[in-house]
Structure formats: C-alpha cells, structure tokens
C-alpha cells in the first residue's frame, strides 16, 4: 500500500487506500466553458480566483489547474495561473497539461510538491514528462493510453501501467509518486465502458498497489441527469480501489457521495468525517 504526498507551501495532502478519498476540484479548466476561455485570453483572472475559492469552500483537497484552450499560449499562461491560484488558496495543486513545456514552466514557479497531470504510456510523453517529475520531485498521474490508443481491455491497460511504473522507477521516481489514471470512458457510447474502468482499478490494486485517480465526470457524458450517474460511479470506483477523484465538488450531492462512500468502506472511524461534513454543509437535509 502506497501513500502519495502532495504539498503546497502551507498544506500537505496524503493520498492512500487506508485514508479518506481525496477530492481534486476540476473546475479551473476552460474546456467547454466559453466565458472562462475568453477571460483567460483577456488575462482576466477573477474567474480563476472565484472558482479556486468556491471549490475549496466546497471541500476540494487539491485543485486541478488547466488552461488549455484555442488561442492560449499554455507555456506562458499555466505558470501565471498556477501562481494566482497558489496566492488565492492554500491547497496543493494538480498541474494539468499535455504540453511538457507548459508543465516545466509551471513546475518552475510552484512552491511545494505538485501533482502533475499527466504522463501517458506514449513514448514521446514518457521521455519528456518523467524527467521533469524527477527534476522537481513531483508526483505524477500515469494515464493508461499508449501509442496504439486507449485499450478497451483491463489487462492491456494494466500492461501500460506496468510500463509507466517501470520507466519511472528506472529514472529513480518512486512508485508511491505515481498515481494511475485508469481512464473513465463514456458509458453513452459503450455500455461496458464503466465495467472496463472498474476492472482495471481492481487489477492495478492487485498487481501494483498504486494509488488510483479518475476524472470521473466523463462517464456520464451524453446522458441526462449526469449527476446521478457520476455519483454512482464515484461510489463504485471507491469500492474498487480509487483513492483520489478529479470531480466538481460544487455539484449537488457529489462531495456527500464521496464522504458517504468513505464511511461505508470503513475509512471513517466513529463517522467523524461524515458528521463533520454533515454539519458543515446544509445539503441535502434528511
């Protein structure tokens, strides 16, 4: 069993299977948010500050920061937004970009130990991202896709996880600093998508013992009442072995589902976290 530590200047978050699930707020991401994209282009960072504060207030333990949108120079923008979010809230950050140069620029200005999202099993990603993780002593999300795409078979996804872990360990990156993203595909285009993800989680737990992360919201894309599907997936994935979740903590009932799952999975002695959550937030009243 592994513990992954992620730090900001003033806070430490520990991710592990014997600990309560860690919530990573996903809302600082312009994909599909036209206004946020325009605000970024205009260098208006009010939106970023507001989302940072709102998510932490709603229980985010870590914040994901992604500035990828058409027209934005990520290499310049990602460090700038990372700095702004760090000045606004205390929580550690998950620096999110598929551009290694943007990741490098952001890691350079980040104070603490960041979680980097992500490296994949693709050769060009392994050679460009892993050295950065080593250099900055960061933790990294390992995404289970490679040069042939995203396999639809849990055993093949497991093989990519082995590859990422081996390549990282070769560079001296400890396994505890690699969090595996088993990939949440959308169930609306393949009714087996969620079962493949869940089975992959179980296999990673058995074979590697690594911490596991999912960007959970994608599961419900294309269907109505996405919230119900996403919350149920959170519960199932936590049972399978998920340890941290990229999600929207401000969406109704979402955080409550995480805390309830922890309670039912025996990770909340005397129900103290559940009760604290219940008293702190008014939704939903029984």
């Amino acid at each position: 069993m592994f513990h992954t530590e992620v730090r900001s200047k003033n806070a430490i978050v520990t991710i592990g299977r014997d600990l309560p699930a860690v919530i990573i707020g996903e809302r600082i991401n312009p994909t599909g948010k036209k206004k946020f994209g325009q605000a970024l282009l205009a260098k208006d960072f009010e939106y970023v500050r507001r989302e940072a504060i709102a998510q932490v207030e709603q229980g985010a333990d870590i914040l994901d920061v992604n500035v990828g949108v058409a027209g934005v120079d990520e290499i310049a923008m990602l460090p700038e937004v990372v700095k702004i979010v760090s000045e606004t809230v205390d929580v550690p950050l998950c620096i999110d970009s598929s551009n290694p140069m943007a990741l490098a620029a952001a890691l350079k200005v980040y104070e603490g130990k960041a979680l980097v999202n992500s490296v994949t099993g693709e050769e060009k990603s392994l050679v460009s991202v892993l050295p950065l993780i080593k250099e900055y002593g960061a933790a990294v999300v390992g995404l289970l896709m490679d040069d042939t795409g995203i396999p639809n078979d849990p055993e093949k996804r497991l093989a990519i996880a082995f590859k990422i872990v081996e390549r990282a360990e070769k560079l001296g990156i400890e396994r505890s600093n690699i969090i595996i993203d088993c990939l949440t595909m959308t169930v609306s285009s393949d009714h087996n998508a969620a079962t493949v993800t869940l089975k992959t989680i179980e296999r990673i737990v058995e074979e590697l013992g690594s911490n596991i992360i999912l960007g959970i919201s994608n599961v419900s894309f294309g269907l109505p009442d996405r919230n119900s599907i996403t919350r149920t997936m959170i519960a199932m994935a936590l049972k399978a072995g998920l340890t941290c979740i990229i999600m929207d903590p401000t969406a109704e009932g979402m955080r409550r589902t995480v805390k309830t799952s922890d309670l039912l999975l025996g990770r909340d002695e005397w129900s103290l976290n559940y009760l604290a959550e219940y008293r702190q937030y008014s939704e939903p009243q029984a």
Partner: protein
Amino acid sequence: MAVLEDIKNSIITYKPAKTKEFCQQALDEGIEPQLILSEGLIAGMAVIGEKFKLNKIYVPEVLIAAKCTHAGLDILKPILAAAKAVSLGKVVLGTVKDDLHDIGKNLVAMMLEGAGFEVINLGVNIDPEKFIEAIKEYQPEIIAISSLITSTLPNVEATIKAIVDAGLREQVKIMIGGAPVTEEWVLQIGGDGFGKDATAAVDAAKKLIGVA
C-alpha cells in the same frame, strides 16, 4: 408508400433490423432507391438530429439511430451506386495527428451520411500528409478535422497549412470541430466552418456547399 413511413419510424424507434427489412421491402415494391434514401432514411435521421438538438434524446439514442441508417444504407448502397445517385457532396473527415478521440467525429460522420453526404472517414491520429492524399484521391468538397485536446490544436493549423502548401486549399472547404475549438479560432487559422455539435456540423457543411 407507407413503407417509407415505416423506415422512418424504425429509425425513430431504434430498430436496425426493421430498417433493413423495410428498405428491402421498399426496393421490392419498386420504389426508387433515391426516394427511399431521402424520404425514409434521411427523413428519419432529420427527426433524430432535431430531437438531439433540443435535448429530447441523447448520445446513445443517436448512435443506435445511426446504426439503423447504416443497416438501411447497406441494402441501398449497391443499388444507389449502380444508379449513380447524386450525393449532396463528399466529405473527408478525420481526427487530427496525435489525437485519438473518435466518438464526436464518428457522430458527425453518421449525421453527415444520414443527411445525404458521402463520407470518407479516415479515422484518428491522421497526419497532414494523409489528409492531402485523401484530397487528391477522393476530390471531396469538404475536409472535416476533429481535435479534442488543446495540445493537438496546433496540428489542425499544421494540417491547414499543409493543404495550402500543397496548392489544394482552393478546391476544398475546411470544417473544424471538437471541445476546445471555437468559431473565432477556426476563422482565425484559415478554416471555413465550425459546428459545436454533430447537428450543427451538418448545418455548417450544408452551408459551405450552398444547399442550406
């Protein structure tokens, strides 16, 4: 010609086997394949597209409806080809180099086919050179490029540039789509059309070839 209504209904009620059966029945009744296509299959997909636009139906329903249309097309295609039926136009589409997303692109492909376009679907992770080869080989009216992740947006620009450099820009219209894509950006990098979803993509394609 109640059978055309049956074809349409089989699509709206998601029954691919029925679509196939009714298309065969329509042919047996001596109905022109072009009419079966437009009044049966395309009419059915038009209803689906409209409902999808209004959030009355969802992605899985569009996918199964598209499956119905394909089942019907399988029956009609050989006969349509023999009769040299005219399509609205030819579209070559693919997801840009280094990007492996295909759901949205395939949805667009099916909707375009359903609307009467001939679609050549190149797949995912398509190099600029492959787009160029496809333009030369298929002589399409439209090139449709999908990009779902921000890091592959520069590859869309590279693809357009390659088409310009190959001297082929004048003969094709270029459409671009995908979550991080905006209409302003498409025009800025020298594209012609944009659709925020599959239905909008069909509207954009029709507009580009002047049949909207």
